[in-house]
């Protein structure tokens, strides 16, 4: 979906693991005043075409990064400011490392290059924790069935069908959710951070249960010339818990004429 000011610089918003582009609902109005705003759902999420998903391509974040490159190439609007939330921040890092010319700037919102504990690096989680998450996903998918899938996912032209189901924007096929959870939480992109050559802003929350304190600083220190902003906000989704501050940080960074 494309909204906002025509002809203005382009800001592309990429949602993280869990829900879909609705996550940006509270910041889009503020961003749309300044920019052309591009919203999309990762394959397998929201109203994306489920048939485009395949287990091999999307087993790692590279498949998602290729999608971002494809979207940018197809839009052909020149370099964009890519705002990636959570796992999408690393998807943006991978895409920008691969095709720097497509990206004017990167905004990494509550990023974590590695969720697992590893020696001196404190990602916050153990492999057992991730298994627990997969179990948690599973027990909340009891209502899911193959017959419901087309109702929720298969009617891109008739979104009202999906909206009647509460919680629909955070639901997807359990197999896809499981695969995305694995790709997200078991990836280690620490080595990719140093390859970013695009002006980058790291935005972290003061109290984030998923990207613990210290991870934002690690990302900032690893990406040459990047900046770090810490929002006084709780949780992993500042675009929901602190939408004004989040939008302001994006506008301040993406609006600068560098």
């Amino acid at each position: 979906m494309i909204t906002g000011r025509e002809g203005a610089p382009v800001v592309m918003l990429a949602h993280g693991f869990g829900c879909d582009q609705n996550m940006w609902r509270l910041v889009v109005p503020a961003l749309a005043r300044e920019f052309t705003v591009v919203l999309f759902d990762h394959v397998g999420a929201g109203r994306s075409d489920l048939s485009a998903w395949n287990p091999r391509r999307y087993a790692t974040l590279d498949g998602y990064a290729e999608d971002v490159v494809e979207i940018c190439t197809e839009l052909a609007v020149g370099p964009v400011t890519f705002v990636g939330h959570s796992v999408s921040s690393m998807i943006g890092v991978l895409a920008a490392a691969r095709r720097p010319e497509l990206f004017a700037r990167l905004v990494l919102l509550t990023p974590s290059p590695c969720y697992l504990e590893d020696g001196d690096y404190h990602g916050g989680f153990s492999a057992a924790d991730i298994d627990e998450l997969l179990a948690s996903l599973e027990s909340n998918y009891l209502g899911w069935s193959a017959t419901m899938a087309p109702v929720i996912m298969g009617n891109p032209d008739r979104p009202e069908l999906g909206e009647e189901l509460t919680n629909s924007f955070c639901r997807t096929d359990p197999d896809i959710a499981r695969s995305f959870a694995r790709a997200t939480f078991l990836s280690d992109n620490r080595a990719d951070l140093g390859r970013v050559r695009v002006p980058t802003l790291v935005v972290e929350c003061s109290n984030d249960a998923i990207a613990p304190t210290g991870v934002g600083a690690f990302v900032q220190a690893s990406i040459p010339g990047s900046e770090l902003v810490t929002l006084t906000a709780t949780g992993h989704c500042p675009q929901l818990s602190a939408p004004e501050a989040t939008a302001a940080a994006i506008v301040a960074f993406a609006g600068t004429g560098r």
Partner: protein
Amino acid sequence: MVCADSDDQIPFAALLEDSLEDLYDNAPCGYLSTLLDGQIAKINATLLGWLGYRREELVGRRRFADLLTVGGRIYHETHFAPLLRMQGEISGIALELKAADGTRLPVLVTSTVRTGGDGQPLLIRTTIFDARDRRAYETELLRARQESERERGRLQRLTTSLQRTLLPPVLPPVPGLEVAAHYHIASLDEVGGDFYDLFPLAAGTWGLFLGDVRGKGAAAAAVTSLVRYTLRAAAVYDPDPAAVLANLNTVLCTEYRDYEPRFCTVIFGLLTPDADAGGFTLALASGGHPPALLLRADGTVASLSTPGGQLIGVLPDARISTTRGRLAAGDTLLLYTDGLTEARTAGAGQRRYGDDALFDLAAGLAPTTAAATVDTLVGLLNGFGDGLDDDTAILALSVPAEGRRRPST
């Protein structure tokens, strides 16, 4: 009216005299109020009892997410909290709480956001139900579902491999002939009953057949298998198409004499290279099968009808109808099963596609080649979408047109 024992009963009013506070604290479910950032502001005695915490250990000091298992916390951050924020409420989410002594309590959580007069969210109210029994039941359901999904996968793999054994893996190269085929499987769960084959016979001649066993599934697959091997063996014995089908009819009638009759429609053809004129002469026999189409080099189309041919496997003396023709340079022979013509077309009325439409399509294609014909028909089949609910087999053979004939090997 006064009941005799009314003096023994405590009046409702006295029963209900319990304070709201008592109602809250000792409700049969957990109550929790948090600030928007999840910080616990109020918690009832029931929930404290389940968790084994003292009130002062939690209120003002811990967040709701702190009470969850780590996996649950991730789920909370990535699903629960965003949904609650966007919808103002969320219900029946399965989570596990961690008690003070480390034990886990499966619960179902429902939350609503309380807003002030100006619509601004103020705090989150949460009710928590003990879901131990229910979770055990759900785990069993989940296990059963995973089992059934595994079994379905196994069945589909089995069906696919069985289907493969009933069709030639690749069609053999025939000197001076281009061949193409397509098989559309209507259901992943059941083996289809359509079949075809093309195989060498003595003295440079080739046998070919295409047909449709009535029914689906394992029983139909057994018949398909029998039909295929009977046709191939019979053709070696006597390649005359009418004789081949007569043989098949006898076999089917005898084999299933004491059971529910199993029958099929089938076209059998014999191709003989025409040394003088080039191309092939063609002898066809049909038992109740839709007519083959001949798409000629001059752009005309002929329906190679075989009127009066009867189903194979029903009557001991089934009438088998034959026809002869020539497959010259630039000609294409098309055989198909009725899955194609019986498909429902999109749009008003959901009419069947029909023989006439196929004839017109062929007329538009001619002159053509086997590959182009099959490509076009595959596109047509895909276009039917859900309207195509039967298996469909397509077999096309063409003699390369003059000037583009490949050297025969």
